[in-house]
């Protein structure tokens, strides 16, 4: 049977093969290889930055989304979400730049900028996901004698999980995509090779940064996609 997924996988392999050919044909492979140590070091820095800021955004964003979705917040939540929606339209470079004006240069502003950029999709999806849980499920749960906390843990969060994880997936994609910019404000990471490569017109250096960055982004997206597939109950999982 012909499956689109198989085909896409083959297409990916083909694309990698093509990139590989292109690189070796242009003699760039050796050039890139000279940056191997930098690649390893900067990739670690990059991943650390993404992981810490992403984790912080999840740890803060999900509880905030939960809090906004509680009945007590009903009145102010919509207004707050409006502000958040405007917030998501702000370009990430602007977020990074503004973070620098507040916190100067180094790890802290980079971390903070990435944290802010990834926070909004998580809060928004947690909020909308929880609000989308049908009222009759909550009525059934309440009628069965569940406490509000039990309802949140056993009914609301599992039913909203797919949407919440979609938000986390979007957030991490933004985070990984913005992480190269961290270099501009002294946060390190693979952006160093890319931006320096562009400035110096050193194609090898440029690719030494761009290829791992792209691969990292695709990998993170793939992993969060897998998380969505496996962590969300089959009963409410559109992927299964």
């Amino acid at each position: 049977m012909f499956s689109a997924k198989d085909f896409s996988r083959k297409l990916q392999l083909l694309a990698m093969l093509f990139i590989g050919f292109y690189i070796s044909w242009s003699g760039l492979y050796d050039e890139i290889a000279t940056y191997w140590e930098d690649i390893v070091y900067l990739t670690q820095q990059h991943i650390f930055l993404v992981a810490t800021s992403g984790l912080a955004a999840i740890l803060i964003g999900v509880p905030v989304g939960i809090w906004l979705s509680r009945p007590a917040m009903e009145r102010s939540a919509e207004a707050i979400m409006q502000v958040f929606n405007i917030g998501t339209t702000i370009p990430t470079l602007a977020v990074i730049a503004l973070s620098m004006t507040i916190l100067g240069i180094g790890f802290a502003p980079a971390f903070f900028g990435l944290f802010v950029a990834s926070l909004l999709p998580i809060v928004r999806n947690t909020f909308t996901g929880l609000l989308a849980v049908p009222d009759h499920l909550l009525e059934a749960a309440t009628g069965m004698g569940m406490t509000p906390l039990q309802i949140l843990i056993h009914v609301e969060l599992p039913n909203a999980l797919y949407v919440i994880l979609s938000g986390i997936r979007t957030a991490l994609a933004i985070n990984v995509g913005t992480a190269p910019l961290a270099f501009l404000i002294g946060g390190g990471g693979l952006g160093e090779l890319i931006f320096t490569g562009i400035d110096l017109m050193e194609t090898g250096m440029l690719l030494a940064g761009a290829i791992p960055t792209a691969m990292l982004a695709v990998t993170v997206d793939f992993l969060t996609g897998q998380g969505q597939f496996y962590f969300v109950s089959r009963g409410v999982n559109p992927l299964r």
Partner: protein
Amino acid sequence: MIQLEDLTKTFSTPNGPVVAADKVNMTVPTGEICVLLGPSGCGKTTALKMINRLIMPTSGRIYINGEDTTQLNKFELRRRIGYVIQQIGLFPNMTIEENICVVPKMLGWDAKKAKERAAELTDLVGLDPHQFLHRFPKELSGGQQQRIGVIRALAADPPVMLMDEPFGAIDPINREIIQNEFLKMQEVLKKTIIFVSHDIDEAVKMADKIAIFRGGKIEQYDSPSQVLAHPANPFVADFVGSDRTLKRLRLLTAVDVRDIDAPVASMQASVEEVLVSAKSHANRIVVLIDADRHPVAYVTADELSGATGVVSDFAHDLPTTVPVGADLRAVVSEMLSHDTMWITCVDERGHFAGVVTQPAVTAALGQKSSSVRDQATDARLANV
């Protein structure tokens, strides 16, 4: 037993306070189904939801088996009451087994016992536990989901169940089936049930008692046959419908009105002999039976008078027979479709079991004594 005592709920709205339930008093005896009936906004759902405190009563008391529930923690109270809603509310993220085990788990049952209970209940509603317990709600049909909704409420074996239009979202054919299944289960389980409905036919079918609500007040609280036969006021009469007498037909069965002593004779009996018994009986017919007491034909007094010989020469085929357990609606329907004033009843083995006549049916519907109502109720329960 559930007792509501001066139960009142006042909602404050921008247009001033609205009384949704106004000093509701009622007692539902153990093992009975009480249907709260009325148009939308009449307070029936509010009354129901105050019992498991989904709505906090403004004043009044609720006793369950004599215990004042005001003293109980609301979560504990709810765990002891089965609750079924129209939208079913199965948790889509949980398997059927997990859904059924929610309350038992909260009550601290061990997992094995809860799972056994889930399998037992699934089996009880005619679903194969091996096949269904590990499915998710979305993999079940609407009717199957509703059955699971009911047994989930029964999981911890609560003495009391509240049902808020539980069969309202199901198509008419399946609703009939599920209602029958439910009544059959109730015969064994003997739960005390309060059931909200806006459908008079459903109420007549399910209820031991019907409470008709309007504007937060009970207009009438009585047995279905009594509500249909003697509406307390014009509102109730209007609500139960101008065809209420016909509706009562469903509450009575052939057993209630048949003439068990109607004369019978064998095919070989002499005309003179049969004529005597035919004339002695108001209906002026005699049913002829074979050696096994199966009704096979009939003769009329008019045709026999002045004749001689054996009755088989004057026999007519029986137009039709009805099972003795059939409700009067089916019996009358048979009579009308065969254009006859009387009909022969048979028992489960096909033996002659009496005759139902139209005058007997009319008399039964016109009867005022409460003894008929009780007989009717007993008969109905015995035959579901």
